[in-house]
């Protein structure tokens, strides 16, 4: 065996594109739609049903999350306990999620248990009963876990940040007192379900091994959802505040968030802002991690991100630092923001950032489940998986000048949120 010379760094091949399968679509005569992406490695099927039924549509606190979380807590045919038995006996992975815009129901199963999984899915999506006694148990559990969450500085800072950039009453900004769980009734959930869990207000994505008419079988289930209307709602403009500080006297670390509201992901500057966020705090060698962690040791981690919502989006820098370095850390963050607004990013750094971003996409798309998440996101944004190539091209075409321009355009009027010992 000839050993390689360690003093020579291996050649690196920089990936310029990302392989991604587009999805196919089938429709039933009555208008049910299922999108599917086939992958053949494993005998598993994943099904996600996406409803435009996020928190922004609720008229009473916690209705959106309680509705999706309680779909499997009782139906006209089975009790909560019986439904749990079915899930556990067949080893079905069942998950629900809710954000400001959408609620998503996901099941994942071994192919051999598809029939049982589909009948479970059909039942919870067409005949949930939201029993009062189950709601009571649910509400008391959630109330307690919310109370625990809200003792953590990072959770407190996240909630304060949305209020700071959108406004206390804004659909993307508000949060509710835990005590509101006491006012939640089964009727709230039933009304919300009836209005938003309809065929016309949803879409379905499946991935995995799709042999033996899997797609048609799923389509037949989706076809049973009631007809309704596509949810609409207007999002008012954001009203931001410059600074919000929350005192937590026993805290040994402060949570800091700095950022602002931006735009949805179809905006022409979206990718450039993603590049900026990555340069600042999107990976280990990013400027904020190097500065606050590796150079000064103020923190265990620092991040910058651009997150998108259906009708908005925001840029945010997040970190948790030793209390005594709170102001020093804030100063360093603003210093880094000034630098990116005034100095061209070097070609080396920019190329590294491009590789990091493209590598991240390759990893997300690897495997049968990641492609499903990406497909959902693209459909939410009214596009398809070919959109990924456009994003990759835009990343590759980003120049240092574009970064300066966008940084000067958007990294102004930032809101600062600090939760910690004053």
């Amino acid at each position, binding site marked *: *065996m000839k*050993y*390689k010379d*360690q*003093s020579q*760094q*291996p050649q*690196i*091949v*920089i*990936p310029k594109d990302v*392989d991604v399968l587009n999805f196919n679509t089938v429709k039933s005569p009555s208008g049910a739609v299922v999108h599917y992406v086939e992958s*053949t490695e*494993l*005998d598993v099927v994943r099904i996600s049903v996406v409803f435009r039924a996020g928190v922004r549509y609720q008229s009473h606190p916690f209705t959106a999350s309680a509705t999706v979380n309680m779909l499997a807590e009782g139906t006209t045919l089975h009790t*909560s*306990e019986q439904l*749990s038995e079915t*899930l*556990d*006996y*067949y*080893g*079905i*992975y069942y998950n629900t999620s809710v954000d400001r815009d959408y609620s998503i129901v996901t099941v*994942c199963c*071994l192919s051999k248990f598809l029939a049982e999984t589909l009948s479970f899915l059909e039942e919870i999506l067409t005949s949930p009963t939201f029993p009062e006694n189950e709601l009571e*148990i649910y509400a*008391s*559990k959630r109330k*307690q*876990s919310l*109370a*625990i969450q809200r003792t*953590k*500085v990072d959770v407190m800072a996240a909630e304060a940040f949305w209020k700071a950039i959108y406004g206390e009453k804004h659909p993307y900004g508000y949060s509710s007192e835990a005590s509101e769980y006491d006012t939640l009734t089964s009727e709230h959930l039933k009304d919300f379900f009836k209005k938003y869990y309809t065929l016309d207000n949803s879409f379905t994505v499946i991935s995995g091994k799709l042999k033996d008419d899997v797609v048609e079988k799923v389509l037949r289930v989706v076809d049973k959802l009631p007809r309704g209307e596509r949810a609409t709602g207007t999002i008012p403009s954001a009203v931001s505040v410059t600074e919000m500080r929350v005192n937590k006297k026993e*805290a*040994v*670390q402060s949570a800091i968030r700095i950022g602002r509201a931006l735009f949805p992901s179809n905006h022409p500057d979206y990718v450039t802002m993603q590049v900026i966020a990555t340069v600042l705090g999107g990976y*280990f*060698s990013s400027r904020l991690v190097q500065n606050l*962690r*590796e150079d*000064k*040791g*103020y923190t*265990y981690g620092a991040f910058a991100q651009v997150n998108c919502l259906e009708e908005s989006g925001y840029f945010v820098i997040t970190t*948790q*630092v*030793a209390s005594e370095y709170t102001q020093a850390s804030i100063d360093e963050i603003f210093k880094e923001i000034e630098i990116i607004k005034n100095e061209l990013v070097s070609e080396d750094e920019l*190329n*590294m950032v491009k*590789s*990091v971003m493209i*590598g*991240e996409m*390759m*990893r997300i798309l*690897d*495997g049968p489940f990641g492609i499903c998440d990406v497909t959902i996101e693209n459909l939410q944004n009214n596009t398809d998986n070919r959109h990924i190539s456009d994003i990759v091209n835009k990343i590759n075409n980003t120049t240092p000048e574009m970064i300066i321009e966008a940084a000067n355009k958007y990294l102004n009027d930032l809101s600062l949120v600090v939760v910690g010992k004053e």
Partner: protein
Amino acid sequence: MIDYRRKVLSNGLTVVAHRDTATRMSVVNIIYKVGARNENPEKTGFAHLFEHLMFSGSKNAPSFDIPIQVAAGENNAFTNNDYTDFYITMPKENIDTALWLESDRMTDLNINDESLDIQKKVVVEEFNERYINKPYGDLWHKLRSAAYKVHPYSWPTIGKTPDHIKNASLDDVRDFYRRHYYPANAIIAVAGDYEYDEMFDMVESRFGHITKQGEPSAVLPIEPPQSNAREVTVYGDVPAALVYVAYKIGGRLSPDFVVCDTISDLLSNGNSSRLYQSLVKKEPLFTSVNAYITGDIDPGLFIACGQVADGVDPRKAKDALVEQLKAMSCEKVGLYELTKVQNKFESNTLFGEVNIMDKAMNLCFYEMLGDISLVNNELSMYRSVTPDMIIDTSADIFRDENSTTLYYLKK
């Protein structure tokens, strides 16, 4: 089923390879057989601190992270009580960059005062963020030190106190590196769309020249059998009371391990399980309950725990929890219920082997345990657990004198 082959190089490095033809990505995963259990009780948190220092760059690669990032890769690491794991994913064309970096830091790590000082601060902030500035953050410190009197599992990976980290010296660091980081104390797994011979060759061409030899790890003290029930009460500024009951069980390779895991699944894997149905739904003493085993290499813990509902006496809640455990040794579990947890184990195993990274990590882990075939055989071991085995093992474990109870109460 994960297909794999293994080989041991002449310097003692164990290489495990897995071919995955469905991906453009590749993985390099290295386990060093050193964790918090190998630490000096006066210098705890060291294995984890050292994991941070492994990113300080090496002789031929002054930056560890930059080449990975340029190559569109990603890397990270974790330390637990038993071992330290480093992983890198790359587009498959760039796997040699990952091997080059790992080889270089196995032999020629940059160790200096500057990087030590910074990483000490970073780790102290990690300590603050995860174990101090968080409700219940010190729970495992208290529980471990009560459950273990002799064995080094008595402290968590982060260490007993931030002072141990602050006091680490450059000599300590050099000594630790010399003793624990060498080929025969490591296992490397590579995975990607390559021929098996190609994978073995690429590892050997980067690691075969290394002759570094360390020291075999010291024999660890054996925790004597527990003869009295132990109890600890901690008061903190927390919104709800927690109850933890820990019972001593056998090690990862003991015959009881699979039975204990099955018992924990019967009790708490999923909402249909016994603890959730009886203690959260029927009689709401808890808002959440859980049972699991720690999965340590040396004799570990069976944990039953829960968050006590508002207004419920934590002692009453604990008694009801223990009653459920003891019932496992009295009444035979039905075949339906047993099949249910075995089915669930099967799907969890399959869902846990979806990505190439999971597969490489699992292979490395089982090879470290000393029986790589378990990666594919454990399912049949779970399927062969019988109701009688569950009764016998439960009777053996769920004895009061074998328990440590921790109450975490509102101040």
